[in-house]
C-alpha cells in the first residue's frame, strides 16, 4: 500500500488568501486563458454548426458565453456570500451538453434551448443544497455509465465533422490535418512531462491548423473580415414559453446532464482544495456547495442571455498543482481576461476559423478521455457481477437506442424522442436497476452515539437485539458482541492525546441476515451530517489512507475487517459470520 502520511506540500508558493505580485497573477492568468479559450469558443461552434442555427446566433453565443464564463470565474475566486468556491476554478462551456443542446436546437431553436437551460439550472441549486439526494440517485455507477454515454452521443458529431470537407480543397487536406491534430495531441499527452502535457491540446490544435493552412482550408478570410474591437450583433434568442411537448421531453435529459455535471463539479472543487494549501486540511464542504451554487448561477445566466451551459474546467487544478500558485488573484485575472477577450471579435474569429477536421481531432481526444473518466468512476466503486450487469446492460441499451437500432418503429413519438437519446435511455435503465438493487438489500439499522467507553452498553444492547431478531445462536451472538466491542475500543483515541480534542461522534450501521452481519462504524470529530461527508469523501478524496487497525482480538471474531481513514473521519467495516449450524 502507499504510505502517504499527508506531508506538507512544499510546492505551494501562494495559498488562496496570499497575494502574489500582480505581474505573476496576470501572467499565470493569461496562460490559463490561452489553455482554455479554444475549448470555450469551440464547443458553441460545434453545437451551433451541427444544429445549423446560423452565424449571428453563433457570434452572439460565443460573446455571451465568454462574458458569463469570465464573470463566474471571478465569482468562484472571490466568493460572495454562499456563492463561489474561494479557489481558482475556471469556468468554461460544458462539453457534456453538446449532444443534448444540438437536439434542443434542432427541435425548437435557440429559444427552447435557453428555456431548458434556465429551468434545469434551478435543479442545480436544489442539488447544491441537497448533496445526499444527489448521491442517492446519481450513484457512482449511474454517473459513470451516463458519462460513458455522453461520449457515445458526442462522438458521432465529431466523426460527422470529418465527412464535410471544404469545397475545392485537396482530398488529402482533411485526413492530414485530422491526423496531425490527433497524433500531436496524443503524443504530447503520452510523452510530454510537466507543463508540456498541459499544453498538449493547444499545441495539437496549432499543429493541425498549420497543416490545414498549408492545404488552404484554414478560413483566413473570416479572420481578416472580423473587426479588431466591437460588440456582436444582438442575437439574443429570448425564451420559448410555450412549454410544448419537446420541452417536457427534453427537460429530464437536461436535468440528468446537469446532475452529472454537478457530480464532476464536486470532484473539481474537492481537488482544487487538495492542491491549494501547504498543510493538508479537511475538505471544506461549504466551499463545495459554494462551487455548485456558482455553477448553477452560471447556467442560469447562460440561459438568460441565450448562450450554452458551462461548468468548471479541471485544467485550473493541474495548473495550480504545477505552478504552486493557488492565490485567488489569479482567478480574478483569468475572469477579467476572458471578459476582455470577448470584446475582440478578431481574436474569437481566429479560433472560429479553425477547420472542421482539426476540431474533430480535438474533440475525439477530449471525449475519449471523458469516456475513460466514466469507466474509472464506475470501476473505482468496485464492480461485482451484479454491478457489471447494471453498467453493461444500461450502457448498451443506451447505445442501441441512440443509434435507433432497437425497435425504433414500435415506439410512440414522445417515448421515442426521450429514448432516442442514449443518455436518457441508458441513464434511466441504470437508475432503475441501481435503485432496484439498493431496495433488494436488507435494510440497515442505525444508531448514533458519542464515541467513548460509556456508550458501550447502549451499542451492545443494539447489537444483541439484531442477533435476536435474526435468530443467531448464543456463540455467534457472543462473537458479534465481542467484535463490536473490540472495534469501538480500537476507535477510541488513546488517553494521552485526548485532552484538547473535540468529542467524537460515532454512527454504527448494521445490516445482515441469518448468516452474516456487516457493521459499519463511522467515527468523526465534530458534528455535521456524517453520511454527507462520507458519501462525498468516499467518492473523491484522494488522500484516504488505509491503515491496519489494532486487530489482534478483533480478528478472532470477525471474518473481515477494513479500515478507511480520511482527514477527520474513520470508517471501520467489520463482517461477522454466524455459525452455519445457526
Amino acid at each position: 500500500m502507499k504510505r502517504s502520511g499527508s506531508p506538507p506540500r512544499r510546492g505551494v508558493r501562494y495559498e488562496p488568501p496570499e497575494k502574489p505580485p500582480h505581474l505573476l497573477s496576470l501572467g499565470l492568468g493569461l496562460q490559463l486563458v490561452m489553455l482554455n479559450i479554444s475549448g470555450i469558443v469551440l464547443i458553441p461552434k460545434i453545437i451551433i454548426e451541427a444544429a445549423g442555427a446560423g452565424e449571428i446566433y453563433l457570434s452572439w453565443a460565443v460573446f455571451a458565453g465568454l462574458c458569463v464564463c469570465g464573470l463566474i470565474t471571478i465569482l468562484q475566486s472571490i466568493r460572495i456570500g454562499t456563492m463561489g468556491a474561494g479557489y481558482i476554478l475556471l469556468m468554461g462551456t460544458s462539453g457534456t451538453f453538446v449532444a443534448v443542446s444540438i437536439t434542443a436546437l434542432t427541435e425548437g431553436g435557440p429559444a427552447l434551448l435557453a428555456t431548458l437551460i434556465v429551468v434545469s439550472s434551478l435543479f442545480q441549486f436544489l442539488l447544491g443544497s441537497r448533496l445526499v439526494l444527489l448521491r442517492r440517485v446519481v450513484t457512482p455507477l449511474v454517473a459513470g455509465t451516463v458519462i460513458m454515454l455522453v461520449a457515445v452521443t458526442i462522438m458521432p458529431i465529431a466523426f460527422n465533422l470529418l465527412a464535410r470537407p471544404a469545397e475545392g480543397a485537396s482530398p488529402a487536406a482533411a485526413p492530414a490535418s485530422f491526423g496531425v491534430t490527433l497524433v500531436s495531441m496524443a503524443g504530447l499527452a503520452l510523452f510530454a512531462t510537466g507543463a508540456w502535457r498541459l499544453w498538449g491540446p493547444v499545441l495539437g490544435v496549432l499543429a493541425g491548423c498549420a497543416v490545414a493552412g498549408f492545404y488552404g482550408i484554414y478560413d483566413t478570410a473570416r479572420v481578416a473580415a472580423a473587426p479588431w474591437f466591437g460588440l456582436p450583433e444582438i442575437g439574443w434568442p429570448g425564451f420559448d414559453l410555450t412549454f410544448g411537448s419537446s420541452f417536457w421531453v427534453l427537460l429530464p435529459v437536461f436535468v440528468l446532464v446537469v446532475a452529472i455535471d454537478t457530480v464532476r463539479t464536486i470532484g473539481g472543487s474537492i481537488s482544487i482544495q487538495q492542491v491549494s494549501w501547504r498543510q493538508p486540511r479537511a475538505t471544506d464542504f461549504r466551499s463545495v456547495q459554494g462551487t455548485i451554487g456558482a455553477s448553477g448561477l452560471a447556467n442560469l445566466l447562460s440561459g438568460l442571455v441565450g448562450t450554452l451551459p458551462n461548468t468548471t474546467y479541471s485544467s485550473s487544478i493541474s495548473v495550480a498543482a504545477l505552478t504552486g500558485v493557488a492565490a485567488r488573484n489569479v482567478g480574478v485575472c483569468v475572469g477579467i481576461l476572458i471578459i476582455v477577450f470577448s470584446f475582440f471579435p478578431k481574436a474569437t474569429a481566429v479560433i472560429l476559423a479553425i477547420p472542421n477536421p482539426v476540431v474533430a481531432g480535438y474533440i475525439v481526444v477530449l471525449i475519449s478521455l471523458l469516456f475513460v473518466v466514466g469507466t474509472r468512476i464506475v470501476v473505482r466503486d468496485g464492480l461485482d457481477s451484479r454491478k457489471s450487469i447494471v453498467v453493461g446492460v444500461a450502457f448498451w441499451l443506451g447505445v442501441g437506442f441512440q443509434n435507433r437500432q432497437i425497435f425504433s418503429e414500435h415506439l410512440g413519438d414522445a417515448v421515442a424522442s426521450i429514448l432516442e437519446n442514449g443518455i436518457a435511455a441508458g441513464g434511466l435503465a441504470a437508475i432503475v436497476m441501481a435503485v432496484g438493487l439498493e431496495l433488494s438489500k436488507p435494510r440497515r439499522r442505525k444508531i448514533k452515539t458519542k464515541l467513548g467507553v460509556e456508550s458501550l452498553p447502549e451499542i451492545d444492547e443494539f447489537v444483541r437485539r439484531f442477533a435476536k431478531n435474526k435468530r443467531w445462536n448464543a456463540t455467534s451472538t457472543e462473537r458479534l458482541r465481542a467484535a463490536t466491542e473490540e472495534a469501538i475500543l480500537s476507535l477510541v483515541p488513546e488517553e494521552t492525546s485526548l485532552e484538547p480534542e473535540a468529542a467524537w461522534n460515532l454512527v454504527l450501521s448494521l445490516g445482515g441476515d441469518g448468516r452474516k452481519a456487516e457493521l459499519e462504524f463511522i467515527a468523526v470529530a465534530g458534528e455535521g451530517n456524517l453520511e454527507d461527508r462520507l458519501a462525498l469523501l468516499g467518492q473523491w478524496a484522494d488522500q484516504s489512507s488505509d491503515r491496519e487497525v489494532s486487530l489482534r482480538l478483533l480478528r478472532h471474531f470477525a471474518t473481515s475487517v477494513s479500515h478507511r481513514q480520511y482527514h477527520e473521519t474513520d470508517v471501520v467495516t467489520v463482517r461477522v459470520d454466524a455459525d452455519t449450524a445457526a
Partner: protein
Amino acid sequence: MKSSAPALRKELRYEPDERPPNLLSLGLGFQLVLLSIGGIVLTPAIIIRAAGGEEAYMTWAVFAALCVCGLSTVLQAVRVGRLGSGYVLLMGTSGVFIAVSVTALTEGGPGLLATLVVISSLFQFVLSSHLSLLRRVITPLVAGTVIMLISVTIMPIAFNLVANAAEGAASTGAPASAAATLVFTAGLALFARGSLRLWAPVLGVAGGCIVASFYGLYDVARVADAPWFGIPTSGWPGLDLTFGASFWALLPVFVLVTVVGAIETVGDAIGIQQVSWRRPRATDFRAVQGAVGADGVGNLLSGLMGTVPNTTYSSSVAVTELTGVAARSVGVCIGILFFSFAFLPKVTAAILAIPDPVVAAYILVLMAVLFVLGMRIVAQDGIDSRKSVVVGLSFWLGVGFQNQQIFADYMGGTLSTILGNGMAAGGLAAILMTVALDLAKPRRRRVKVMLSVDSLPEIDGFLCKFADEKGWNEASTERLRAAAEESVLSLIPDEEASEDEEARHLLLLVRGDGRGVELEFIASAVDGNLEDRLALLGQWARRSVDREFSLRLLRHYASSVRHRQYHDTDVVTVRVEADAPAKSGD
C-alpha cells in the same frame, strides 16, 4: 484493508483427484451441460445466420462444435502429456469470435474460416509455451481495450437480430420476447442468490421462448421435423488453401482475437485452481499452460472439422465453487454428454428453434458483461492520465473505423478490411501507443541473487554503480543504499522459522527517472522465471494479500513502500527520491 488469511475451504467436498459416486458426477455434469449447451449451439448459429450461410453448413457446424467441445473438455479434465489443465474446465464455442467469423464467412465462405481457425490455433500453441510473451505485447491495457471493442463489433449483430421476427407474426411479438428475455436474465442476475443466479441466462432464454411461443414465434416445426438420432451427412466445408488477399487481411485480426481469448483461458485456469483445493496452494503454471494448450487443440480440431473456434467457459469455475465438487470425473462426464448430444438432432433443433429476438437479448446481456470485463481489466492496474489516452483513443478509433466513420472512402482493399474491423484498428492503436510508452521509459536493470545476508555486498555494489551513473550526490546515494539494505533484511525470514525452508531467490529490478529510482524486490522460494510468474499472478491472483511491512527504518529513506504477497512470492516496491540539487543523469 481486507485481512483474509487463506482459510481452509471446508465446504469443498471433492478435490480433483478424488472420485465422487458416478451418479453424482453424472448429475453435476448434466447440470453444467444444461447451463452451457445453449451458448455452444447458439454461437455457430448466430455466426452462420448473420453471414447468410446455408442450413446444411449450420447443422454440420453445430454437430462438429459439440463433438470438439466434448473432446477438449475431456482433454482438459484428464490431461494428456502437456495438454489439458487437469481440472474441470468446460470448453464451449467462443463468443469473442462472432464478428470476425462473420467477416470471414462473408469474405470467403466456410473454407476460408476453417483455414483461418487452423492457422491461428497454431499461435495458441506458441503462447502456451511462452506465457510471458503474451503479457509483454498484450498488456492488460491492450487486452481490456480489445475486449471492449469485441463487444462493439458484436453488438450490431445482436441489434440486427432483435427485430427479426417470422413473417406473419404480430408486430409486437419480437419486442415482447426480446424484452422478456432481457428482463428475466438481467433480473435474475441482479436479484437472485446462489445457484439460481447461475441459471439466469438459461431461465431468461426459456422465459423469452415462452413469450415468443405465445406469439407463435418459436419454430415448433423445426423441432418436430428433426430426427431423434442421426449424423449430418453433408456440410464439411474443407479448407481454403488459396491463401488469397482476404486470408492475409483477416489473419492478423484472428490472431489478435485468439491471443485475447487465450487471456481469458489463463484467467479461468487460475480461477479453477483457486476453488479446487481444500488447502489453498500456489498456482500451478504448468496447469495454466496445459489449459491454453488444450484450448489450442480445441481450435485446431474446430478448424479441421470446419466449425467455429472454442474457449474455456468460466461457468465451470462458478459451479465448482458453489457445489464444492472439483473432481475430474465431472469434467469427463460433461465431455461425454456433449459428445452424445451431438448425435441427437432433436436436442440441437430445440435450441436452434429459439427465435432471433430472444437470441439477440441473450447476446446483448452476454456482450454487455464482456464489455464491463474489458473495463475491469483495463482498470485493474490503475489508470493514470497516460493510460487514459491509450484506452480512450484506441477504443474510439476502433469504434470510428468499425462504423466506417473515419475516412472510409480513402482506404481501399486490404487496408480497409483490416481497419474496417474495429478490434484490429483499435487493438493496433493500443499496441502501438503502449509499446511507444514502454520504449520511452528508461530501461530496467536487474540483478539476481540468493536471498540472504551474504548477498548484501553484491546488491550494494550494483546500486552504487547505478547512482554513480545517474550522478546522484552522496546523501541521495546513501539513502538509496540504506533503503535497499533495509528492504532485503526485512524480506529475509526470521532465524527460528527458516530452519527447514528452502533457499529463496531474490530478483532486484531498478528503474530510474529524472527525479528518483524505483526498486522492485521479488523474493520467491521457487526458481524459474520470476517476472513471468509475477506478471501472471499480479493480473489474476484473487488471493493476493497486502500486508503491513516492517517499515520503521525503511520509511526514513524511501518516499513510498509497497509490499505485495502471493502464495510463495513477496514483492516489495520501494521508491527513493534523489535530492533536488542532484544533477539528473538523463
